[in-house]
């Protein structure tokens, strides 16, 4: 069923129920992918999905309900569920139906045509063979995957707003397992790339470089975070920048806007139109126009992130950061990145002197506590000796506090790399030199 028909049905049902204020979000997507191991395609997948979320506003509170069943009976059930959900809500956070921004930015998402499954399969096998041929130590369990996804999103509400966004892109995942005696190491690459440009990335060479790791020592030392690790760190702690979390005391940045919270070289930006993004979006889940904003500029907290509800609660203006689009909306980021510095990577290592290079981090979902800012995480990487990357080191831990870390940033490399998008969100960072960190081994 097309969105226009669904919306018409919902409008009729809401009128019948006397519901005046409501918002609809409809998403339809499709996915294709192929995976290979041991020079063979092991699995191909085809998926199509549609989801509709209705937010009903009763007494200024918004209750939500979702379904992927679009017949009249199920749509009526969804409307009744949303109304019932809304009628039990309490508290100071109000749900507002938004009539629309004066104008919306223009996305540059490339027009996307899904590749044919046979081409996806051929590319997956080509990369798989290249990976296994690259080095005798690469194991047959090494995996390659190529996939594509495309989606269309509609947001409409009872004030006549109707917005649409389309995205589509191809991605690859390459995971190399290498073995030398009993020593097994793994590295992966996961990136957005057009099908014809996909080639074997650096996972094989990176996995091999990890072989022969030596133990490191428990100590305090300077550390350089890889872009990937710093992106993960931002993802784990991003909610400390959410205005409602600060309002609730779940972030230590309450009332800190306008104050220094990080080193002067730290600039944190959220830009829904960041040029390299393939999932740009011109509106948030409230229907408010999105825009580029500096969250931290030269170490000073310029703004927290707000949606319409949290902005009203906190006496601020929305920053166009309402999300996610489906389900109950809270706060989300788009292309959130730590801006680049002016050092080459080699200069960062030179400035570190003797320390560690953190190439890989695991367990942030459990080892990072946004409430306190504390983290204690398993890592792998390299020893930095005499200002140069030296030998690989065995699993170690780093421990510290995110708020302290922001103030210990000494320098950043001159190139920002981004993770692939998850929905409309992604994170970016350069490599980052931190003055010192607790290392456990």
């Amino acid at each position, binding site marked *: 069923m097309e969105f226009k028909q669904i919306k018409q049905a919902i409008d009729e049902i809401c009128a019948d129920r006397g519901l005046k204020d409501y918002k609809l979000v409809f998403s339809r997507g499709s996915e294709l992918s192929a995976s290979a191991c041991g020079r063979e395609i*092991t699995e191909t997948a085809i998926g*199509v999905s549609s989801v509709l979320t209705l937010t009903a506003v009763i007494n200024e509170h918004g209750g939500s309900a979702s379904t*992927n069943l679009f017949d009249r009976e199920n749509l009526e059930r969804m409307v009744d569920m949303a109304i019932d959900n809304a009628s*039990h809500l309490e508290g100071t956070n109000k749900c507002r139906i938004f009539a629309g921004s004066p104008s919306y930015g223009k996305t540059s998402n490339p027009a996307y045509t899904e590749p044919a499954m046979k081409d996806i399969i051929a590319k997956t096998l080509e990369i798989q063979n290249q990976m296994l041929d690259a080095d005798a130590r690469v194991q*047959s369990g090494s995996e390659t995957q190529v996939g594509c996804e495309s989606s269309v999103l509609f947001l409409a509400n009872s004030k006549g707003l109707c917005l649409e966004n389309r995205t589509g892109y191809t991605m690859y995942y390459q995971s190399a397992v290498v073995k030398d005696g009993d020593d097994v*190491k793994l590295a992966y690459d996961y990136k957005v790339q057009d099908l014809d440009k996909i080639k074997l990335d650096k996972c094989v060479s990176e996995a091999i470089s990890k072989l022969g790791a030596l133990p490191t020592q428990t100590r305090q030392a300077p550390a350089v975070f890889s872009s990937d690790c710093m992106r993960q760190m931002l993802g784990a702690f991003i909610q400390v920048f959410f205005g409602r979390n600060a309002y609730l005391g779940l972030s230590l940045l309450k009332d800190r806007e306008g104050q220094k919270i990080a080193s002067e070289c730290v600039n944190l930006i959220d830009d829904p139109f960041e040029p390299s993004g393939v999932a740009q979006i011109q509106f948030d889940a409230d229907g408010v126009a999105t825009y580029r904003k500096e969250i931290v500029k030269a170490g000073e907290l310029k703004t927290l992130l707000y949606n319409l509800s949290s902005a009203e609660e906190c006496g601020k203006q929305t920053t166009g950061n309402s999300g996610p689009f489906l389900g109950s909306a809270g706060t989300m980021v788009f292309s959130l990145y730590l801006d680049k510095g002016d050092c080459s990577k080699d200069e960062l290592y030179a400035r570190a002197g003797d320390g560690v290079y953190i190439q890989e981090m695991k367990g942030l979902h459990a080892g990072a506590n946004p409430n306190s800012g504390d983290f204690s995480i*398993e890592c792998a990487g390299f020893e930095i000796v005499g200002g140069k990357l030296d030998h690989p080191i065995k*699993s170690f831990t780093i*421990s510290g506090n995110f708020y302290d870390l922001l103030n210990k940033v000494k320098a950043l490399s001159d190139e920002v790399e981004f993770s692939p998008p998850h929905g409309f969100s992604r994170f970016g960072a350069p490599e980052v030199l931190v003055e010192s960190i607790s290392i456990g081994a």
Partner: protein
Amino acid sequence: MLNKSLINEVLGAALATGADFAEVFLETTENRGIGLTDNSVHRISGDVVSGMGLRIYKGLRAVYGSTGDLSRSGVLSLAANVAGVFAEAPTVAAVELVERIPANINPVKIVPSSIPNKVKIDLVKKANDAARSYNSEISQVMVNFMDTDRRIWIANSEGLYTFDRQVRTRMAVSATATRGTENQSGFHGPGMQAGLEVFTETYDPAEIGREAARMAMVNLNAGYCQAGSYPVAIENAFGGVIFHEATGHSLEATQVAYGVSEFCGKVGQQVANPKVTAIDDGTIPNAWGSINIDDEGRPGQRNVLIENGILKGYMIDTFNARRMEGFKPTGNARRQNFQFAPTSRMTNTFIAPGNDEDEDIIGSIEYGLYARKMGGGSVNPANGAFNFSVAECYIVRNGKIFEAVRGATLIGKGSEIIKDIDMVGKHLAHGTGMCGSVSGSIPVNVGQPLIRVAKITVGGR
């Protein structure tokens, strides 16, 4: 859902291009959630999702498709697309479907989706009020109540046609304690495969709230854990996450079938300390991770993975069993929903009770840690490198538990750590968790009695 004749038609269409097996998975799931923060119910949500997953095998190759469009044209179109990946003549025909009714080990007294929000909100507020009143330094409390009513139908080209209904209910409380500019937190979140009676008969919501608040206060008063290498006593219940992460994932066929596990080819060998017996048991009545049938329609099983330190077997799904000569599926195929192909996953996994007294375990540690509550973790099954965080931790000196410390993470290698579990207590308990992997996020229990790990790397400051 689809009638039997249309399911047969879908299976036939899926087999039309040379596949040797086809399976239809149909699902209708209703999820409901209530969120309370700042003393107010700020979120109530509900969703109903329904769809079909269709899988075919041709030898060692699988094709999976999913759709939410359950119209005749929608499901037959998916079957054509899935079959279109192959291009050969049919080799097998679907066998006539014969209905099988599984035994129900997870009875439900009060179906939560039929209960008004008001009743659940009252339970949520009990937990909130108890956490708030635990201590004046408790500054914020978040309560999440969730219930799921999942109905699945599975049919395959070998004639299987079966159905299950899985109802799960969980309440999770996060408490924040604040002093000056410092926040610390505590969490408690039990759940069962049962109805609302979980929180009217089995668990007292107020106790859940108090437990989260107690942990937050312990952490607020704790110093930082020092990094190093120590013996660690890990308490029962959610402490079992050590086995789940350090070893469990590496025993899933998802890894083993592709040779990407440190336990490949080691069945019959001594892989753990003789004190360690580890079991994955999907048949514990009403346990959070239990299953009447798995997501391929096989009855849940009790699988002994390690017995007295000797590796006895793996957790295996149908597709990966094809790559593992001499092994059969073990009733461990699971998936988040119809959008994911099922694969081998854990259910309720635990270290079985041993013979050591708890006081002897603590008493044996000259200097080390007592991990009373664990957080989550992760593992790289290829080389066994694992990590998990400690949510509530104490220093042990001269066999006695002293001050609390925070910020500890335990890391190591799975195949080494299970050899270092050298004491196992008598009091088994289970903890509730969600496990994320290739087939999505699924409910699992972890469990163990109090154990001692002779030496483990501890991250801290």
